[in-house]
């Protein structure tokens, strides 16, 4: 059983080539930094090339499992890989001008981002809980460092420490959950969880709950969300653009995989209730607390907590259509949320200070493009039609109603009404309030402009022509052995 882990076959190498490319690019960047620091301004390009090569390998890898059934290449992982790659590309594009502005343009930022990206990728492709856990830890370690990369700023150190402590806590939960599942099933492969009788075992139930808690931390799902606002506030904005999107998607996918394996014959009601309760709590708490936020990044953090609440509705609904809806939702969330952080990064001049929303007053006139994209992203997050966010909610609520979750859908919809309150508040400040700052915001760097244009195009394209993505998502969701009740 262990042999397959030690001896790589050619197929194994081909399957893991996307991750190898990422790791190698990260190392290369560090080496270039050490030996030819003058090439610094090419780091972002290099990192983008690394992601591109990785995506090329991912999309051309043969479909199937490798490493003795522990590593998956399927249309599902490819689609999720595209989503993650998109997050990485946006983060790198935003990072370049951000790091130039702050005078911190060093290779380790890109290297850590790429390595964190490897971790997320492992989480989504691993069919073995240990691989998933290793991926989770790789991600976490990289981002603990990224959170504290600006040593001079106290908020950054605070963010790093908070993220590390809560993250370690979350990892411990996850690991304990994995251990319990291992004990109950006799193996760490997710597939082995579907042996008969396990679904009723208390150890498995407890293990699953612990996993839910552990991944709930990563998803910043209430009540495991408390770290997110502080960490987002102190962490460099480009890293937040990635952290607030990609790992959440990966965590949800892992939960779908594990729950799908255990509950082959449908999810028992007590789990449904627990997950639904988490969804309601997260939506309500996120939206209500966001209303009171004055800092742009904290506001987006709470908005993210609420958005994960919506996603969790799909987890409670369960089944193929729910997973497909989640996939569409995450693509929408990628362009809207990463876009919003990209715009925030472009609109604030001084990175060492907090980002009060009030500072954006009048930005609609002084920085029209970034403001317009930010407004579009916020409308999309609020779920206004003709944007990607509406399409995400459309499929999500459709899946919920189809399975008879009327109350959940109703609470979700009422919550999105509450959310309009704070999304519109930002739009109001952007366009309807007179500026408090006399200096214009920094000129928009080409990379920022590209990232924002990509997000805006994505929001509109997905919002107006959603059918092909829905088709792909449904096809991809069908690769998981999920019950469609």
């Amino acid at each position, binding site marked *: 059983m262990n042999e397959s882990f030690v001896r790589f076959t050619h197929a194994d190498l081909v399957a893991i080539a996307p991750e190898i490319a990422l790791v190698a690019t990260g190392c290369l960047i560090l080496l270039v930094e050490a030996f030819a620091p003058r090439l610094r301004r090419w780091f972002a390009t290099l990192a983008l090339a690394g992601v591109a090569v990785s995506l090329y390998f991912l999309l051309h890898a043969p479909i199937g499992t490798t490493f003795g059934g522990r590593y998956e290449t399927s249309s599902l992982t490819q689609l999720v890989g595209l989503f993650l790659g998109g997050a990485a590309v946006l983060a790198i594009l935003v990072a370049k001008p951000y790091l130039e502005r702050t005078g911190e343009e060093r290779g380790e930022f890109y290297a850590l981002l790429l390595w964190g990206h490897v971790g997320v990728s492992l989480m989504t492709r691993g069919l073995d809980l240990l691989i998933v856990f290793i991926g989770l830890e790789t991600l976490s370690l990289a981002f603990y460092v990224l959170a504290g990369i600006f040593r001079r700023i106290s908020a950054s150190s605070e963010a790093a420490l908070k993220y590390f402590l809560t993250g370690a806590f979350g990892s411990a939960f996850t690991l304990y959950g994995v251990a319990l599942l291992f004990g109950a099933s006799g193996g760490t492969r997710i597939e082995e969880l579907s042996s008969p009788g396990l679904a009723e075992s208390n150890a498995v139930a407890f293990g699953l709950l612990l996993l839910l808690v552990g991944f709930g931390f990563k998803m910043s799902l209430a009540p495991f969300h408390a770290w997110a606002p502080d960490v987002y506030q102190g962490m460099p904005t480009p890293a937040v653009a990635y952290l607030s999107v990609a790992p959440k998607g990966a965590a949800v996918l892992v939960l779908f995989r594990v729950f799908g394996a255990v509950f082959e014959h449908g999810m028992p009601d007590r789990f449904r209730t627990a997950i639904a309760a988490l969804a309601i709590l997260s939506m309500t708490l996120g939206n209500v607390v966001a209303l009171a936020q004055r800092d742009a990044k904290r506001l987006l953090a709470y908005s993210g907590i609420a958005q994960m609440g919506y996603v969790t509705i799909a987890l409670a609904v369960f089944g193929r259509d729910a997973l497909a809806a989640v996939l569409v939702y995450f693509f929408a969330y990628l362009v809207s949320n990463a876009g919003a952080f990209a715009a925030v990064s472009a609109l604030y001049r001084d990175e060492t200070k907090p980002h009060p929303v009030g500072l954006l007053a009048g930005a609609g006139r002084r920085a029209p493009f970034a403001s317009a994209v930010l407004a579009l992203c916020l*409308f999309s997050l609020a779920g*206004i039609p003709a944007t990607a966010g509406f399409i995400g909610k459309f499929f999500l609520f459709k899946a919920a109603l*189809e399975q008879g979750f009327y109350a959940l*859908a*109703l609470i979700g919809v*009422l919550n999105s009404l509450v959310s309009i309150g704070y999304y*519109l508040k930002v739009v109001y400040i952007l*366009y*309807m309030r007179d500026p408090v700052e006399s200096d214009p915001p920094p000129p928009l760097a080409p990379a920022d402009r590209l990232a924002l244009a990509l997000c805006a195009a994505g929001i509109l394209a997905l919002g107006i022509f959603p*059918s092909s993505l829905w088709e792909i998502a449904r096809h991809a969701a069908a690769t998981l052995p999920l019950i469609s009740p």
Partner: protein
Amino acid sequence: MDALLRDHLLTLVVFVPAAGAALLLLFPRSAPAAARNVALAVSILDLALSLPLWTRFSVVSEGFQFREKVDWIPQLGISYSVGLDGISLLLVLLTTVLTPVALLFSLSHVEKEVRGYSVAFLVLETGMLGSLVALDLALFYVFWEVMLVPMYFIIGIWGGPRRIYASMKFFLFTMAGSLLMFLAILFLAIRYHAVTGVWSFALDDLYRMTFTGRTETLLFLAFALAFAIKVPVFPLHTWLPDAHTEAPTAGSIILAGVLLKLGVYGYLRFALPLFPDAAMRYAPWLGVLGVIGVVYGALVAYAQHDMKRLVAYSSVSHLGLVVIGVGAFTTMSLSGSILQMINHGLSTGALFLLVGVLYERRHTRELDAYGGVAAVVPVTTALFLIATLSSIGLPGLNGFVGEFTILLGTWLSPHRWWTYAAATGVILSAIYMLTLVQRVFWNPFAHEENRELTDVRPSEFIAASVLVVLMVWVGTRPNDLLDRIRPAVETLQKNVASKQIASVKP
């Protein structure tokens, strides 16, 4: 080109403004004059394109005309499906007339962020037209919500002192209703799929569904609430005076002229034929709310000191009358309601416009700040008087025909007493509107600064006289409109009746 005009005329009419908005975004922000003229030109082009809809509309054929259908999200049976019947035809034309009128008025009065302003109006026009012609519920919902965003900006950026409060209230009120409707639309389609095994959001398909009991009631209420907020029906009207008072003049013209009608239109097109049993059960309530709206709106209007607020509350009253006609549900009352929506769009549009003319010169809308200005601004006074007479229903002008048809139609319905209340509203409207005219234009000349008032500019005069000409036309030849309305109303009643019979069967 000919083929495009022949087969895709409706699509062209709907999307030309949006294309114009996209074009405007390519213009530099520093060229306000260009943005202004292009926006006006686009809206006039759209008006020109929409005229063939009127001439080529067949009075005899039943059902929807100018239909187009293209798959949009085929997996769920969602399509881009549009068409016109008599009801939507008139409202579409009202929209294509009022938008250039509003933009024409703005020519000389909007200085701030002209490009953004023009883009917002053009996007708004596409949203309104799209909601009026959509025959697919998902498509309708998209257009319905898309309207909100430009209107939010129009009130919020170019509005009066309390614009932030007003725009937020407008957005949240409307959104609260439409989100519940969103769930109801999804539920309808899911039920259709469960029954037939096929996905569809098409109105034709969903019309065939029958629901019973609590399900129907809840679905009906979800739809009705969204539309009642938009109209607005009595207890849900509080967003309207705020939005109207704070909106820039052009925004008020569109808001009163078209947006409010979409509530009634939505009720007639969706809530009523989809859930006829529940709609009939609640029709008396609707009528009662209409009666309250008529009287309450009129009384509150009488108490106003602000001209714009007065006209805004008069809208609550006038739309109450429209709601009564819908509640009475006779062929005549329904036709009257639809006609009255057009009339209200013309007369209230003109009133808001002319109030705007005064406001732009004196920067106040207080009644007491004027008085006796008829001598200074004779043309404005004449136009205002015509609009007032149209609004209070002077025979020969459009308002009379609409009100009379509604009253007669309601008298023929089982709810005869509504007619008395509605008639009070007509009388009250004469009182408050004539008081308005008297206090502003006629009373003894009170304020010296009004000596400096200038009369209408050419652009304002053209904008207002277009509306006046239409008022006279509708007032003297109402059958041109009623002939187009009647088949649509009869089809609606037939659909409702046949569904009611169907649902009586076990």
